């Protein structure tokens, strides 16, 4: 299979790679660049574990042709914490026990970041809608929804903190 060159920004840094022309963005990030926060839960666009931001938009990297990302700015969880300081969403996920096995967590954080970057004060319904493409099989969605609401500074949810 022929190789094609590609350049893009990853978490603010310039990257250049030779990739298979049919490669997905997920396989390039994980296999070539060595970024492992996007996970391959289904590789068919149904679970959300491979979620990344492309030019600020939430995208499933498993069904994104890597070539189409030429010149794009890509964000992953690796770029969320800066200088050892966690992003408010990461801190809220810790405080709310919103990550159990952790396999869905990075995708959830991306979906949440996509929402808050555009809408810093979402309603509970908007939060639910924002993560509706992300499956979690362990934690349960309530702690995740509450964590995202917490990160906005206010909790409108009904989840009871004991």
């Amino acid at each position: 299979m022929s190789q094609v060159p590609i350049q893009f920004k990853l978490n603010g840094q310039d990257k250049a790679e030779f990739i298979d022309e049919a490669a997905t963005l997920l396989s390039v990030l994980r296999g070539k660049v060595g970024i492992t926060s996007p996970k391959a839960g289904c590789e068919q666009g149904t679970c959300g574990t491979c979620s990344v931001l492309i030019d600020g938009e939430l995208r499933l990297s498993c069904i994104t042709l890597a070539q189409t990302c030429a010149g794009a700015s890509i964000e992953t969880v690796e770029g969320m914490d800066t200088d050892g300081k966690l992003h408010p969403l990461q801190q809220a996920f810790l405080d709310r026990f919103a990550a159990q096995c952790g396999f869905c967590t990075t995708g959830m954080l991306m979906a949440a970041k996509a929402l808050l970057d555009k809408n810093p004060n979402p309603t509970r319904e908007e939060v639910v809608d924002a993560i509706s493409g992300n499956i979690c099989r362990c934690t349960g969605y309530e702690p995740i929804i509450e964590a995202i609401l917490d990160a906005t500074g206010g909790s409108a949810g009904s989840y009871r903190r004991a």
Partner: protein
Amino acid sequence: MEFRKDFFADERAEGLKEVGHIRQRQDAVGHVTGRTKFFDDKKTTGLLHLKIVRSPHHHARIRNISTHEAERVPGVVRILRAADVPENIYTMLSLINVGIPDEPALAFDKVRYKGEPIVAVLADSPRTAHEGADKIRIDFEELPAVFDVEEALKPGAPLVNEYHGQNHFDYDGYSHQKVRLGDVERGFQEADHIVDERYQMSPIEHAPTETQGCIAVPSDDDRIDVYSNTQALFFSLDLSALILKMPSNRLHFMGGTVGGGFGGKVDTLVEPLAILGAMMTGKAVRHSFSRRDEMRAGPPRGAERIYIKDGVMNDGRIVARQMRIYFDAGAYSRLSAYGAVKAAAHCPGPYTIANVYVESYCVYTNRTPSTAMRGFGVTGVDFALEVQMDKLARTVNIDPMEFRLINAYRDGDMKAHHKRTEGAALIECVQAVSDLAGWQIDPKYRSYSSRQPGAAPAAAPSPASQPSASAPPPPPPPSSPPPGTTAPSASSRISSMFRRGR
């Protein structure tokens, strides 16, 4: 309310108030920063990808397997077949001497469920592995299949698994696990009402977000390093060594990071072939289930069919309970022989009933082999029992909470397994739950305690239960099970083996 501390009293701190509080997991920072390393995050060079060719049929004879075309696909490195596996026929619980080898790592003469592995293709990319797998040609002769546990036990049903010779697990000469106490027929005659019902559980898929998989890497010290997401690391190590007929000290398993398991990552389905591939090629091999593999061939919870016939008095006492349980193992034993034992051990629920008769079968069908899931064996029985309890309560027009309190077991009561009850706390739990739910129960039931004898005395085997309120429960009576308690050696031996359970 009194909190029981009969067990682990010296290890349990006073005044624990952990329930309902959030405590940070030790691995949580790794999770939220993406730094947690799952098996597939392991960096390896020159990785080969293993793809399984699976049976499209529920039950079929394999007439011929042709790999020639696949071998010519560029990128395909090696093809594994049954003859390449040193000890191809195995059974999971052989490690603890339960059951006989009944399952091939790769099928060769016939397939017994849809999705059964037949050939493994090793190639230099996932894509070429798929292309190679696509070119494997297998001729099948379809056979009649059976999907229903009761159909499978009828004479003339298709034989699912020749290694067993019949469609049920053999418990040292017995077709099922038994629990016997008193005389149910006499109990039914005495009863004011009989409630006879059938319950059916579903074979639920665990659907973890991370599918099961591993990477096997030949290491410099003549071992194979295995990065796995198994839920049972040493079990997988030992079983791999057994299937590959190699000393277990040549295998180095690393795991403990599991992207959701729920029991579904207990069976050793990926490691043996990955290790074999690594040994045969000298390269690192990745064997990861696709989502399709996980959903189609990944083992689900075993579905149970449960019949319960109860005799109940107008005053709410259950006087007889007869249960028949069929545990659907699917095509192979895996852990299901254990599941059926757990199901029997859980009967007749946390209630004191004088006459109990239980049969629990582990049955083979042409369905996907089932495995552990969240209290398997017990969960299904509880579902059936508690729905039944509600039906009984309605039959005699008693509040469902009070109905449970009337029948709840208490310290010293004789259980159906001929052991005295110890550390009972059902009454206290029901009382606490009623309070939390704002459910009114009669003050009479408020005064009930697990430490005091109940209204439903165990009629059958003497001596009747009369522990004093403060004394520890009496020791179990000498074990001389009454006639009818068959297969004591088999059931007690297996039960004690399984006591540590998952």
